[in-house]
């Protein structure tokens, strides 16, 4: 034993003050930073990068582009963040609980201990967020160009991802403070993840009474925030067009029941602008029955309906040819269609003529396939119409892209961070009650 130990009188020593909470936070923050190297805590960073790569590979083609892709992407990004956050800290306290108990009895403030963890974990979460976004960019996830709060939307989403990761981190920190050992912590962990996954609210339809429970989940808040930032309400729904497009199949036989009378009747409705225009089209004086039949044949050929078989197996072209032959034999072929100034008048006349009306109001069966039907219409135009009409079809207030809405989500996530950190402090204040 060395002789130069300075021994002060006990009475004097009692007047010394020991390090306060801020200084102790610094001491423990330094300790945690060293642990990052020695304890292999750094491994959570490559793990985060790997998870981000796998997820962005799946969502990159549709994220921010379609309604479903945006929701899936938001869900996936939220899950990645929660996963990263939870695994950062689920074991950090419980694995050194007896050590913490010893240090607490030696003067360590629990608040300092938790604050030092908060600081350290915040840096870890920030690094994971940056890595995740970088990997998303590498994997060519197309982020919208302009953000609401910063110049880049990627940065805006980065703030959300960071807050989700940090809130989950604090949740796991609290769990770690609550349980006595790492085995229990890792047993509880899947329940936490499943709870977050199920109550995220975006993917699974939940009973209405679970709404209150959903509000307690980080995933619910995070998913809504990312979806709002991605302007979910104004992205087109892709599933409708995908479902329609799947029908474009030459092997998909189809039998259509056509009633020409009903079809012509629809051409009497002048409330509809295109029909009104059609009805007002003039008929030239020189139009003969023969010429009209020729126009009809070319129209049938143009739409590829020449092989359409009417009931009885007779193709449409043959029906037209029969009519022509009948007209020629009866001497009507060169007769002018007179007395009608417009197409509308002709249609009305045809439908008012009892003999024709009777024939036209019969239902004829037409055997075709879906591919033939698709050929009748312009695919790009149809896609455009479907895409435009599905925008906002799933409109929800929760996904409104507004500064107020997104800031409220950020506030909620920040409240989660503070709440779980406080719970961790309160829980650890009872560490002295642990059984020996």
């Amino acid at each position, binding site marked *: *034993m*060395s002789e*130069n*130990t*300075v*021994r002060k009188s*006990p*009475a004097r*020593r*009692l007047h*010394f*003050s*020991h*390090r*306060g909470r801020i*200084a*102790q936070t610094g*001491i423990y923050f*330094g*300790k945690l930073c*060293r*642990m990052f190297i*020695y*304890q292999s805590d750094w491994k959570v960073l490559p793990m985060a990068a790997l998870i981000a790569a796998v997820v962005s590979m799946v969502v990159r083609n549709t994220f921010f582009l379609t309604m479903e892709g945006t929701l899936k992407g938001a869900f996936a990004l939220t899950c990645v963040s929660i996963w990263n956050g939870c695994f950062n800290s689920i074991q950090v306290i419980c694995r*050194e609980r*007896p*050590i913490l*108990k*010893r*240090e607490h*009895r*030696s*003067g*360590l403030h629990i608040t300092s201990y938790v604050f030092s963890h908060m600081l350290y974990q915040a840096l870890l979460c920030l690094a994971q967020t940056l890595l995740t976004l970088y990997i998303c960019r590498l994997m060519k996830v197309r982020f919208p160009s302009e953000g609401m709060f910063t110049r880049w939307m990627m940065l805006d989403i980065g703030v959300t991802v960071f807050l989700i990761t940090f809130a989950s981190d604090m949740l796991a920190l609290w769990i770690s403070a609550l349980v006595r050992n790492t085995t229990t912590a890792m047993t509880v962990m899947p329940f936490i993840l499943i709870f977050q996954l199920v109550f995220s609210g975006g993917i699974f339809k939940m*009973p209405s*009474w*679970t709404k209150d429970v959903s509000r307690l989940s980080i995933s619910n808040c995070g998913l809504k925030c990312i979806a709002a930032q991605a302007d979910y309400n104004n992205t087109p729904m892709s599933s409708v067009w995908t479902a329609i497009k799947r029908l474009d199949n030459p092997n998909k036989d189809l039998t259509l029941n056509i009633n020409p009378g009903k079809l012509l009747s629809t051409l009497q409705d002048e409330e509809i602008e295109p029909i009104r225009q059609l009805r007002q089209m003039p008929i030239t004086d020189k139009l003969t029955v023969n010429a009209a039949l020729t126009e009809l044949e070319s129209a049938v050929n143009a739409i590829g309906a020449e092989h359409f078989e009417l009931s009885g197996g007779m193709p449409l072209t043959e029906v037209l040819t029969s009519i022509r032959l009948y007209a020629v034999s009866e001497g009507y072929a060169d007769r002018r269609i007179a007395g009608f100034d417009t197409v509308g008048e002709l249609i009305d006349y045809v439908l008012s003529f009892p003999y024709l009306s009777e024939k036209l109001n019969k239902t004829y069966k037409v055997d075709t396939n879906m591919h033939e039907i698709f050929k009748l219409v312009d695919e790009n135009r149809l896609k455009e119409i479907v895409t435009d009409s599905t925008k906002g079809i799933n409109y929800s207030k929760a996904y409104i892209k507004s500064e107020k809405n997104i800031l409220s989500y950020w506030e909620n996530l920040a409240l989660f961070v503070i709440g779980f950190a406080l719970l961790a402090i309160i829980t650890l204040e009872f560490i*002295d009650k642990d059984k*020996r």
Partner: protein
Amino acid sequence: MLIIRLIIAVWCSEADVPFIYWAIPMTVLLTVGLWRMFVKSNIRPVWALIPCARDYKLSVSANREPDGRTLSVSLAVYTLTSVFGLFSDSLSERARLIVGVTAVVSFLVHFIYSIRVYRGLIEVYQARRRWLLIWVFLPGLAASIWGVSDRFRPRWKVEDLRREQKATFGGKDISPMRQGLTVNLRERSVTEFFQKKILLRDIHLSIDPGRMVLLLGGSGAGKTTFLNAVNGYEKANAKVMLNGGDVYGDYKKMKYEVGFVPQQELVRGKDTVLHTLMDASRLRLPAEVTSSVRKARVNEVMDIFGLAPVKNSLVEKLSGGQKKRLSIAMEFISNPSLFILDEPDSGLDGVMARDLMKELRAIANQGKIVIVITHTPDRVIDLFDDVIVLAKDHQRTGRLAFFGPVQEARAFFGKHEMEQIVRSINRPEEGGEGHADEFIQRFAEVQHV
């Protein structure tokens, strides 16, 4: 007990027989059986009439009191959820879910804990293991047979634990010394499941500075509880004065005057020795101490405990002895007046353990009080000045059986070796001689005189 009720309930509903026809005889059998069993175990038989409470009492008679708490609570919860279940049609979806999940969980908990208690019963009654199945599926039958038949007698009775207190004199308070440690511990108790349990009682002693004290006692005698009470970590009904300061009254300051080294090496394995000690010094030394003084103190402590050559090594790479030294060094860094060590030599070989004790002796020689618990006292007894002997009395409360110099202890107990002293105060079922009450009484009288 629940499982058989469940089976019968299902059978009754299938066979269209009112459940009550079976429930009443089963309950009567169980009640009568438990009544008789409680009589045998010296438990008031009237408890057999009270559901939930009788499950707890049954577990007490099975020497499974902690399991009995869970058993009775889970049964109470299950019964409550069953009552709610009767009105399930009028409950909301959310309430039905909560009630259903709670019922399933409480049923499973009750099932598992009832098996634990029945196993305890089988041990206490020294019955064959096959009885476990009968207890699980036909508890009324098992209880009635065990209660009525004279073949089934418990090995020990609850009365053994709860005998009337003897009027033993416990000593009186000692006046605090200006220097040194004075302990006047009247009672240290805990309350578990509405029951007060006294862990320590009537320990009055004073230790002069510079003394190295051995704390002896059998397993469960309350050694660690006593040390925790002395250093103020687990407060008791006591007055502990250290060098004129009140440890309880001014705990925030006084805790730096007490160094407590736990049994395990509670040090982070992934940090270096130097950083561990530097952090310990920043935490334990006063804030006014400058960085250079702190570093000097860390270097000094490393020299004292032979840690300088490994200062840059990770703690996990150290040998068992080095880890122990580091653990002690962390507490010693604040230069405490009272140094308490809980089995510092556990896991060390004889030579290393003696070297460590010599270092502790050197610390005591500096005018500090060193209190050590060790389970191999005889190889280092020459290094100690005093010995404290704690023993469990007939109520299993830790009491002071002796405090004084080592030589006087030998004379008092009539034993030369410390391990023989421990054996003399240990209970017969622990392999001891069972003289604890006798020595406690004698020492209390000697102390009073």
